[in-house]
Structures are given as C-alpha cells and as structure tokens.
C-alpha cells in the first residue's frame, strides 16, 4: 500500500521536525490508549485478556481504523498480571473488575533509612522487594529463585507479544515508526522513587517534616540507581527517557527546592550531557514551578495535566516541547462542539512557533471514560487544522549537549554485591573470554532493569 508508506513518511517527518527544532508540516498527534479500554472496546473480558496480551490484537486493529493518530494508539501495558502475580506482588494486584490495582503499600520503614543511605541497592533488594513481593522468600532460596525466574520470563513474554502487535499495526497503518527501542527509558526522580513504593505518599509527607536530612541523603543514595534505571543503551535524538513526576505539587516550594529538585535537575542535566532527552509528565498543576522547568535542558518534552496553556506556552514554549493539557474528561461530559472548541483553543495557543504535539492531559482508564466519537472528532480536527504555513523554519532554541556538564564526582556510584560490572566478573572468573561480555553483562543489566522496574 503506497498510501500507507507515504503517510508513514509524513508522520516520521513531522516528528523528526518536532524533535529537531523545526516547524513541522502539521501538529503531530500522539494518542496512546491503555490496554484496558482497548480490550473493553473489543468486548474482551479484562480479567482474562490481560493474561494473554495477544488476544487484544483485533480490538487494537479496530481502534486504529476509527481513531486518527500519528503514533500507534495501542501501546500495550506495563502492568500485566503474569509477572506481578508470580511474585505475589502487594503493590500491583488484580481487582475483581479485572483492573490491575496499585494500592498504597509502605515498602520501607523509617528505621530503614540508615541502611538505605549506606547501601541503597542492597537495602532495596534485601528489605524493600521482599516486602512488596511476597514470593521473594528470603528463607526459601530455591522457591524464591524459581518464582523470580518465572516472573522475569513472563515479563519478557508479555512485553514481546504486545510489541509484536504494535510493530504490525505500525506497518499496517503507517504510524510514526518511532526511535530505536533501545534508546528509550523509564524511571523516576530520586525523591519520587523514595515516595512511591518505598515510603508511600502519606509517610513521605511526615518524613519531609520529621527527618528532612534523611530524605535528602536518601535521594543522593538513590541517584545512581534511578539514573541507571532510565539510561538507554543507545542514544537517539528522537527518543526520550520517560519520567512521571509525582510529588512536587504536594510540597511547599521551600521543601521542593531543598529536597525534590536538586537531585532531579542534576539527573536530567546528566542525561542531556550524553545527548539524551527526557519526557516529563508534570502531573497535576505545575503553575508555581514553571520557572524551575525553564531551567531544564532545551527540548525537554513536558506533558502537562492542568495549568493555563497560555502561560505555559509563554514561559516555556520557545525552549521546551509542550504536550498534554487537553482535558480527557471533556470527551465524556461535553458535547462534540464543545470538544472541538477546546481543540481549536489548544491549537490557537499552543501550536504557534512549533514545539508542540497533541495529547490529552491523561489517559482514559476505561472505554466509558470517553465518548469515542468525540475523541475521533477531536483528533481529526487537529489533523485538519493543525497545519503550519511556515513548515521547515526554525522553531525556537536549539539543543546542544555540550551546554550541559555534570561533575561525575558530585554523585554516588552504584556499588553493590548484587550488581557486578564486567571487571568484577572477570576478576572472579579470570578465564572468561570478552566474547561473553555482551551476553552476560546484557543479562546483568536486564536483571537490574527488571528489579528496579518492580519498584516503579
């Protein structure tokens, strides 16, 4: 189908321009529907479909036919039950309605701070993971090994199944082909990592007042771990490391500036110094932090949930790439005309000057969260009206990795008996050939990635 190829080329080029400081031909439309609404759309039983992600292919295909998007609207899930259940996860469990629930569980006690600060990775493995994942039985090592092996294989299996569907749909419908898979990443700010699954949202708010020094030291201790967690194995200007940002809007600026921002800023700068971009989901309303966001490396991709689009564009639009802000709940509660008016407003305010792509402020969780026909009308409206007359012109400030320098001695290094570098490994196994490195070290990395993913 030559039409599809041409469409894919157009899509690739508008994203390419977006990420390279050029005005694209039109505003790229980035729709990603989670697994659940797509399964529901196909009339599948959620509780069973999530056990076999391949089942959702037909439904995903149908969505592609009705809902216009430049990126593939099916992105799979990062939360399949197979791997969480084989580890008896406490923090991700399937509810009666088939949804994977993420209840708040405290994974680390206040008295664990000292150990976390002393040996962060050891503390995460020895104390936090077994608390969140009951199948990691410290007193039953073989059972533990078997459960862990099963879980990581399930993860690879399910991710691959979904990945195959995505690849097929990209080909079939000519979606933006996207950057090299190895050049993306997923992690959290050190403070958010500490808040989410270690201390919990409630407890961390106590810690900020009761023991701020420990919180600051813990962020430093976690720095090399979360940095490595997000680190892509290849650098590509079109790719990005994704970080959802959780706690700042809950905090006073004073606490934010002291405890949340410094390690985060250094981390984003460190990525930038390697030519790596980040995509940040600024959850909730970041209006009072826009000046901080301005300080981040040029072409940081910022997805906003709430806030005044005008102010955001004014303050950040020349430097960063903006997305989000379209209220997904409108698609359910408002008429089609009102939804289109909002789409027009988004274009009027955010599109001029480029460095903007369309997405909603958050994903719908179920198919009932949106009226699909409204959603379709909105993305088609953006496609037809988000057209630039000055395509090809320079958009704003240009990214230059040499602008970012981070002193490596400013941060701690990852040192733990549970993570071996190739040098460590060789020291213990002097006869090993370097031909084994890419394989064995690849698995070492994979296991590190998976273990930390379990805490994200």
């Amino acid at each position, binding site marked *: 189908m030559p039409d599809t190829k041409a469409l894919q080329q157009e899509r690739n080029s508008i994203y390419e321009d977006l990420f390279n400081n050029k005005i694209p031909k039109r505003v790229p439309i980035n729709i990603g529907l989670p697994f659940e609404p797509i399964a529901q759309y196909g009339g599948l039983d959620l509780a069973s479909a999530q056990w076999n992600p391949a089942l959702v292919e037909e439904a995903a295909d149908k969505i592609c036919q009705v809902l216009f998007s430049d990126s593939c609207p099916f992105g799979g899930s990062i939360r399949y039950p197979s791997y969480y259940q084989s580890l008896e996860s406490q923090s991700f469990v399937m*509810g009666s*309605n088939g*949804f994977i*629930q*993420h*209840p*708040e569980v405290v994974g680390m006690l206040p008295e664990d701070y000292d150990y976390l600060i002393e040996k962060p990775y050891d503390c995460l493995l020895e104390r936090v993971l077994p608390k969140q994942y009951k199948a990691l039985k410290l007193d039953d090592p073989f059972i533990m090994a078997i459960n862990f092996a099963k879980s990581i294989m399930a993860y690879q299996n399910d991710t691959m199944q979904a990945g195959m569907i995505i690849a097929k749909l990209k080909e079939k419908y000519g979606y933006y082909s996207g950057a090299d898979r190895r050049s993306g990443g997923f992690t959290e700010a050190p403070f958010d990592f500490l808040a989410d699954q270690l201390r919990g*949202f*409630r407890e*961390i*708010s*106590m810690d*900020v*007042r*009761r023991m701020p020094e420990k919180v600051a030291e813990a962020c430093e201790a976690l720095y090399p771990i979360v940095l490595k967690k997000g680190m892509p194995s290849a650098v590509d200007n079109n790719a990005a490391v994704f970080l959802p940002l959780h*706690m700042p*809007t*809950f*905090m*006073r600026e004073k*606490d934010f500036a002291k405890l949340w921002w410094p390690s985060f800023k250094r981390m984003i700068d460190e990525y930038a110094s390697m030519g790596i971009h980040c995509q940040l989901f600024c959850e*909730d309303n970041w209006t*009072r932090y826009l000046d901080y966001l301005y300080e981040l490396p040029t072409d940081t991709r910022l997805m906003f949930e709430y806030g005044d689009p005008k102010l955001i564009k004014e303050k950040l639009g020349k430097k960063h790439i903006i997305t989000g802000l379209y*209220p*997904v*709940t*409108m698609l*359910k*509660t*408002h008429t089609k005309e009102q939804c289109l008016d909002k789409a027009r407003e988004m274009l009027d305010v955010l599109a001029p000057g480029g460095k903007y792509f369309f997405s909603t402020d*958050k994903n*719908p*969780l*179920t198919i*009932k*969260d949106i009226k699909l026909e409204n959603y379709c009308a909105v993305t088609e409206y953006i496609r037809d009206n988000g057209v630039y007359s000055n395509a090809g012109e320079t958009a704003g400030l240009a990214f230059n990795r040499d602008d970012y320098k981070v002193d490596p001695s400013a941060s701690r290094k990852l040192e733990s008996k549970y993570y071996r570098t190739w040098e460590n490994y060789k020291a213990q196994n002097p006869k090993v050939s370097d031909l084994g490195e890419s394989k064995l070290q690849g698995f070492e990395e994979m296991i590190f990635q998976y273990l930390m993913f379990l805490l994200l």
Partner: protein
Amino acid sequence: MVDLKEVTQAVGDLDENKLMEILNGFVSENPTEEEALKVVNACQNGMAIVGELFEKEEYFVGDLIFSGELLMEAIKILKPLIGSSSTAKVGSIVLGTAHGDIHDIGKNIFKSMSEAVGFKVYDLGIDQPVSAFVEKIKEVNPNIVGMSGVLTLALESMKETVDEIKRAGLKENVKIIIGGNPVTKEACNFIGADAFTTNAAEGVRICQGWVK
C-alpha cells in the same frame, strides 16, 4: 491550664514538637474533662488555620496530610481525659471513595478537616460499592453524603451511586457533595450531585452551609 492560643498556633504552624510538649505538659497536670475539651477545640481551630493557609497556597497537600496526623496524635493524647462525653455534632457525613477507585488521600484530608469543625463522619473507606453507600445512609440517616474519586472512571461510579440513592428514595433527605481531581461542574451535573469541589476547605464550607 495551657495557653489555648499557643495550642492553636502550634497546630497551625504544624509544629509537632511544640504541640507535643504542650499537650504532654497539660496531661501531666491532671486536667479536668472540661479543660481537655477546650484543648481539643483549640487543636481544631488550628486545623482551620491550616485550611486557610492551604487555600492561600502557603500549605499544600503534604502539609494537609501532616496536619491530619498531628490532629490524630493530639486526640490520642487527650482522649483518655475526655471519656465518653463528646462535643455536640454540627451534622453528619457518610463518606467514601467510589467503586473502582482506591485513592484515599484526598478523602482522608476532607475527613479530618470536616471532623475538625464538628461533623460526625462515617468513613466507608475505599472502592465502595453502590450498596455500601445506600445501606449506610439507611442506617445513620446523615445530612450529607460525600464521595471522593481521582480516577476518571470514578465519575461513572459516582453517577451509579447517586442514581441508586435516588432510586432507593433517599435523595430527598441528603445533600450530596463530590470531590477529587477529575470532578468538574459538568461532571457534577452528569452525576447529579448537589455540589462539587477539588478543594477540601471549600468542601467543608459548603457542608457547613448546608447544616446551618
């Protein structure tokens, strides 16, 4: 007797050490029940300061969470002195997170703030089915029903709950207020609630208005 203004101020400043020092000193002097009730009241007035500072955007959600904890600790210290006699309630609220949603930080904040101004709150908890709300309304006959939800899917759950409250013929006797991140005026109309807010302090004021 302690300086009640100081108690109020310590709560308002979220100064845990100071508050505990005052309260422990107070308890060690074998105060009367009446005196203890005055101190409880002073703590509650402190919560009002917290609410005001929150509305002025000097405090944020983390501070509200902390203030809830402070109040709980204070009550724990003072409770043994108060015995069974309780202050007169200004009204009652049945509160819960709508089904399908397990978030409760916002709900808990609203709960401690409305308790601080004298409401009796029946907290159902998270992920509450329609029937739980209906049963509780029948049982305790509250002035107000409060529903919380931060997931977009909670809007649908809230609507189902309100529909069922109406079907059971209970709507006449209660006011319904909804809160949480995705709640808007349109969502409120869609759901059929009487009021909505994304700000707990405002929610408390609305409820106070209803029981006047």
